[in-house]
């Protein structure tokens, strides 16, 4: 890739990430949400992957990091669903809004999202879905690039072996 693109890609990806985060945060009242925001953030990471390549990437994306982030996303989603089940009897009940007035006020306050709409657990669900999607989409490209690198090394070794013969 050209030097101009390498100079531009990293700061631009940071701005794109911020935009993705903003999309996640507005998911409960605007078009967009966890999936779309996560996809935008993954797009920023993929932009860097393509421009810099796996070895020269300014983001250190390891397998452990991806696995940890995805686990936090999945467990957070399950936890929010089970919290509704245990507190109200309904799986994924919106404890922060409490439409049926069946949970104690303390629990309602605990899961309340502090914004003008008081959307309850919906923004938190968007947050964890965003984490899962960002990992899922960027992990695909990461795996492809690693496979390509691994395959490339093998091809180089085969070429060397042929040359020696």
């Amino acid at each position: 890739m050209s030097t101009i693109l390498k100079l531009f890609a990293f700061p631009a990806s940071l701005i794109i990430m911020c935009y993705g985060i903003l999309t996640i945060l507005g998911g409960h009242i605007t078009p967009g949400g966890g999936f779309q925001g996560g996809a935008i953030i993954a797009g920023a990471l993929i932009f860097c992957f393509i421009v810099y390549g796996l070895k020269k990437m300014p983001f250190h994306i390891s397998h452990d990091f991806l696995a940890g982030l995805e686990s936090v996303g999945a467990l957070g989603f399950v936890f929010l669903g089970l919290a509704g089940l245990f507190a109200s009897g309904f799986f994924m009940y919106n404890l922060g809004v409490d439409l049926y007035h069946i949970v104690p006020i303390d629990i309602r306050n605990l899961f309340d999202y502090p914004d003008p709409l008081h959307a309850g657990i919906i923004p938190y669900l968007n947050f964890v879905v965003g984490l899962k999607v960002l990992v899922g989409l960027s992990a695909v490209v990461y795996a492809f690039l690693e496979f390509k690198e691994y395959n490339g090394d093998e091809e180089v070794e085969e070429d060397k072996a042929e040359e020696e013969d």
Partner: protein
Amino acid sequence: MVYAGPIILGFLLGFILGSRIRDNPESEMNFTTSVYIVFIIVAIVVAYFFGPFPWYTDSPFANGLISAAVGIIFGKLILGRKSIPIETEEE
């Protein structure tokens, strides 16, 4: 009144992403402090033109975008100061 929800969640997500930024010794590109200063200025301008997205009326800026940018900078400063270790043949 400033709403804490988008500020906290935006900061958290930004911090997670910012903590993965590392100086890569294998790369010929060297991103110095000036890159992050330009980034925060551009983020403020973008947030100003977004307005109080998504429909919060507490400030003229998009709070979530500003807090995400601050989170990225903090994540970089606190957890992202190390360099990526160079992989050797022995490893």
